């Protein structure tokens, strides 16, 4: 039996695969200690823990630790003269016309920041040796006295030469055994000290939290007879064995939305779609990601609570538009949706829990797309009148009917999602029309067609059980790890010196996988050089053909770079400017092998219900059906709402749909 358990803010989802069938279970999350929710989900699903071969786990433990500032007490160590790096930050503001602006708050207190005297240059030369005596006499006693849970070290140019960071680690380990120490050079070997220090401090901050959490989960499982592999999702869309994750906490920081993207990509590839734009529409926000050739796009730069994080994470853009997002009129008279959300309490007006403000879910109820009897499989009572009343103010203000107001709100939230999709596509030099749209989460498939039309997308692939695709993604994800090294060189040195670095990084990764008990012969590698025109400061990643690493040419590097630069910046091809390589990155993937089938059953009897939907400014006739009734090969060519227990799909006029062999519902424009 293989099980994926994804802990979300409200629900903990479980997908179990084995004995030729698939089980989907949802239990309430237990935010104070999410592992209890995970264990509850196993109980609820009736799974015998000793029969588990594979338990893949995803949680927002690391993310929440940062957002709620509930991590370790961290000591930060910097080069003399620079202990304020985390506070000075980059000296700029995110919001420029704000007289009362405040910077994002670091996870370390200023009183816990220390300095050591040493200096290394950008080329790695040591100009001032580490003053070990001072370390022993000042830093070590302070670390002993401070009651710290972790230490983060980020020395200037430590990315170029980690010798002093390494030596500090030894000195601290000698004197304060057991204290967790994180070096910037082991986390990210890239220049810009603030961003690297921020990443390092965040890693140190969450490491003990992750370590405790996974330790507790492992021992609870063992008590119940667990003998399988416990693996954990990372921000890069791959898994790691839990034991390895306990030493690599930073890669857990954005693992929440990553599993869904991987699940969506894997499930769509069964229908032959490799180039996708995924969007996950939940209660308060929507996460968007672009997938090329089955591989979700990565970015090296992201942030959490305003603090920069430099580590490969899926390039996911989040917008504040979900089912609970509230529609409002601003003081300039413009219609807006979000980012405020009604949340679960009071929730949308139609829940009847006292919410009076109009939400996206209310809009879908008003326009008939959500049938009161069918909401959440009929488990929840819906108050249509309350939903309609919530839109009175907007309708009156703009001189619209309630129905028009509701449809406007739906279209506006769609346009927010469209902009997020443009951010990951057009802004990255990709044309959305070359992609299939893959919606998931409870609301995704309901909004997909209209979003596709805005973007000129012709095909939509809707996975079965779209509301729990994240838990499925845990099981479907590979083991992934990245190695990187900053070593600046002119492009001409790429084919020889660069290829040597690639090979070294590859060998290091093979060794790491061996230690995780995953044989190196199955590994697949990607090779990326980060390049720029000499004088620029931001690099573009250029992927190189790994199958001929030994015979790379300067042209491989140059053409790849100029093409990428033009795609991104609209200039640079044939610029005849010198190009340099700044850093090298190798990604190693241990494929998970056969992916379990996520299928819908198709065994329920058809019971079509006619219930009109307000679409395009008029009430149109629309049939509603249960997703369990849909059979493989069955075609839909008139307006239809497909009601599932985890998600609702809308096939509007102008679209037709068919359930294919992989249980994906494929929608195309007529």
């Amino acid at each position: 039996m293989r099980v994926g358990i994804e802990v979300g803010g409200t629900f903990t989802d479980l997908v179990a695969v084995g004995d030729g069938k698939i089980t989907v279970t949802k239990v309430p999350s237990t935010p104070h200690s999410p592992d209890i929710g995970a264990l509850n989900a196993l109980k609820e699903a009736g799974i015998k823990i000793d029969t588990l071969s594979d338990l893949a786990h995803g949680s927002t433990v690391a993310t929440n630790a940062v957002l709620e500032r509930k991590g370790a007490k961290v000591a930060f160590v910097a080069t003399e003269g620079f202990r304020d790096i985390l506070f000075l930050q980059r000296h700029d503001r995110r919001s420029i016309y704000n007289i009362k602006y405040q910077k994002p708050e670091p996870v370390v207190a200023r009183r816990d920041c220390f300095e050591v005297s040493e200096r290394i240059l950008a080329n790695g030369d040591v100009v001032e040796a580490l003053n070990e005596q001072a370390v022993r006499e000042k830093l070590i006693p302070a670390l002993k006295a401070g009651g710290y849970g972790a230490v983060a070290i980020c020395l200037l140019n430590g990315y170029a030469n980690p010798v002093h960071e390494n030596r500090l680690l030894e000195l601290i380990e000698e004197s304060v055994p057991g204290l967790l120490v994180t070096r910037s050079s082991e986390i990210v070997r890239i220049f810009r000290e603030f961003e690297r220090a921020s990443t390092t401090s965040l890693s140190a901050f969450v490491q003990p939290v992750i370590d405790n959490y996974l330790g507790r989960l492992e021992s609870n499982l063992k008590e119940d007879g667990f003998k399988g592999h416990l693996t954990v999702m990372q921000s890069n869309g791959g898994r790691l064995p839990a034991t390895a994750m306990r030493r690599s906490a930073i890669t857990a920081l954005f693992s929440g939305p990553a599993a869904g993207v991987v699940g969506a990509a894997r499930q769509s590839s069964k229908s032959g779609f490799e180039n996708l734009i995924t969007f996950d529409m939940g209660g308060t926000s929507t996460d968007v990601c672009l997938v090329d050739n089955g591989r979700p796009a990565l970015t090296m730069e992201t942030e959490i609570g305003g603090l920069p994080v430099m580590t490969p994470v899926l390039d996911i853009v989040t917008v504040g538009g979900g089912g609970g997002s509230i529609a409002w009129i601003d003081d300039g008279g413009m219609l807006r949706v979000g980012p405020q959300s009604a949340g679960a309490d009071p929730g949308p007006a139609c829940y009847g829990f006292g919410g009076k403000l109009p939400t996206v879910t209310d809009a879908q109820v008003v326009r008939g797309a959500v049938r009161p009897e069918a909401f959440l499989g009929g488990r929840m009572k819906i108050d249509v009148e309350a939903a309609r009343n919530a839109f009175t103010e907007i309708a009156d203000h703009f001189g619209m009917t309630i129905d028009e107001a509701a449809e406007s709100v739906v279209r506006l939230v769609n346009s927010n999602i469209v902009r997020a999709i443009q951010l990951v596509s057009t802004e990255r030099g990709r044309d959305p029309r070359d992609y299939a749209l893959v919606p998931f989460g409870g609301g995704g498939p309901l909004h997909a067609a209209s979003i596709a039309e805005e973007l000129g997308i012709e095909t939509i692939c809707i996975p079965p059980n779209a509301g729990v695709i994240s838990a499925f993604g845990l099981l479907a994800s590979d083991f992934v790890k990245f190695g990187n090294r900053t070593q600046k060189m002119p492009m001409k040195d790429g084919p020889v010196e660069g290829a040597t670095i690639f090979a070294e990084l590859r060998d290091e990764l093979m060794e790491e996988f061996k230690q995780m008990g995953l044989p190196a012969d199955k590994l697949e590698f990607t090779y990326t050089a980060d390049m720029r025109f000499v004088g620029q400061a931001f690099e573009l990643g250029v992927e190189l053909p790994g199958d001929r690493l030994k015979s790379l040419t300067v042209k491989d590097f140059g053409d790849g770079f100029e093409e990428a630069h033009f795609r991104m910046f609209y200039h640079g091809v044939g610029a005849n400017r010198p190009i340099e390589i700044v850093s090298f990155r190798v990604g190693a993937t241990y494929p998970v092998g056969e992916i379990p089938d996520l299928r819908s059953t198709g065994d329920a009897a058809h019971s079509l219900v006619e219930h009109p939907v307000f679409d395009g400014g008029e009430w149109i006739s629309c049939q509603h059906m249960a997703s369990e009734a849909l059979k493989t090969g069955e075609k839909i060519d008139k307006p239809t709402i497909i009601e599932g227990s985890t998600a609702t799909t809308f096939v509007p006029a102008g679209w037709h749909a068919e359930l294919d062999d992989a249980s994906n519902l494929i929608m195309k424009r007529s």
Partner: protein
Amino acid sequence: MKISALDYAVISQGIHAAAREMGVKLIRSAYSTILREARDGSAALLDAQGRTIAQAELIPMQLGTIDAIVQPCLELYPPETLVEGDFLINNHPYHGGQHLQDVFIFNPVFFEGELIGFGASVAHHLDLGGGSAGLNPNASDVYQEGLLIPPSKYNMERDWNGGNLERLIAANIRVPTQTIGDFNAQFAANFMGGGRLKELCTKHGVDAVREAMEEMLNYTERRVRAAIEELPDGVYTGEDCIDDAAFAGQDPVWIRAKVTVKGDTIDVDFEGTDPQVACNINCPFASTQSVALSAVKVALTGSDVPFNSGLRRPITFRAPYGSILNPKPPAPVRARMIPAYRAYDAIMKALSKAAPEKVTAMGFDCTTIACLSHQEDTGFAVHIEPYGGGFGGGFDRDGCDAIDNQLSNCANTPVEALDAGYDFFRIKSYAMVADSFGHGRHRGGAGFLRSYEILKDGATFAIYSDHHKFAASGLFGGSDGSLGYCRILRGKEIITVGSKNLVNLKKGDIVEVFCGGGGGYGDPKERARSDIDHDIAEGLLTAAEADRFYQSAQAAE
């Protein structure tokens, strides 16, 4: 046709997104540290009349009058005469521009043969020639400050990419590779913005896009008028002074603002401001306008009110011709941020009487420019760092520590970027300084010290700054922030550089630049003990200073 509320929301947000993307790409494809690291550049989309519709939120000072800077170009080359491939360019302080280093470029955007707007960008260029590299504080007229590019029209095909204008500029500047690279980043941003605007026209129709642009101006106007309306009508005054015009041998230079609030309009009059001076701290009128617009925007409206030309409609301003805020040519203007910030503070002091809860105490509010240069065998190495200081304390919170001030928004340059790019100096420390802020119910933001170790003989250091003699003022009983300073440690010798100077350096010198803190807001007696203790524990406040300002204040009760 009247577009629907929905279409308006969709198109306007598309235009905002395009402008934001222009800013991102401008910075990311740039070459010089001042543009790619300090991010001293801005971008905007204008309509066919040259009005700012949406902007990338980068530098308020540059953004404020993009719309005014294109006008002299359009007077010479009316919109209907422009063709595909043309571009307009202007950096002339006496023809709508600000200071020479900020070069504004406008690329017209055509849709189906019709002009629909302009992609506009500005970058502070590292060096545009003139009497010394990067910054010539000795300049006694504008000609000594670098290359003047009057409002003009060129063509990409003919004049750039090896063409006449590109070669003319490259021949007159000290670091052409970086600077021409930065110009290319400006063009790329403009094309990108233009492309996005065309996509919106394709999708929604050119009429709908035009209408949305018009409505975006109206929208901002409505929200700004609503904000002004909340103020009590009246005439409010404020004044502030520049330390000195050092090179002109002149002591405090006064700037006075009279702000008249009437209904939903504001008039800002700088009558009574001192005459222009014979050194580079004159503020061209375009810059003065930018100050007034930014000050009203910052103080009165929420940060989600978009800045565009609609903001101008309820605001009028004037400054006497020949004054430091509206100088006559050919007065030099390089350090126009110095008078600009005093004008900003004069307006804020006036507004504090009308809106005491919205305005903060004065921040360090001064751009400090540190310029290091060295002539090498292979050419010049030039580095410019723009710095801010601490914000002023406010009604409901402390001032932000060590950050760029309100009219600007430059990032620091990472020490590691400098280590990789320059070998004639090295940053020795960069740190916040204890007791550097004004005290009050809410304290000001802390100032910071940045020090440079000089590694080669023959380097020069130029600076302009202010608040070395008169500190940022506290408000409503709060105390003043700390003074800034600049000095050189040469062995046992301490050489005071002052706020506006050019000095030759020796190997081994340590140059210290200190940017001070902001003023406090309200009576220190009212400060929460927990806040005082927190500052002491964090090392930002010494126990002695706390005793002096807070203990005694509390004991006196």
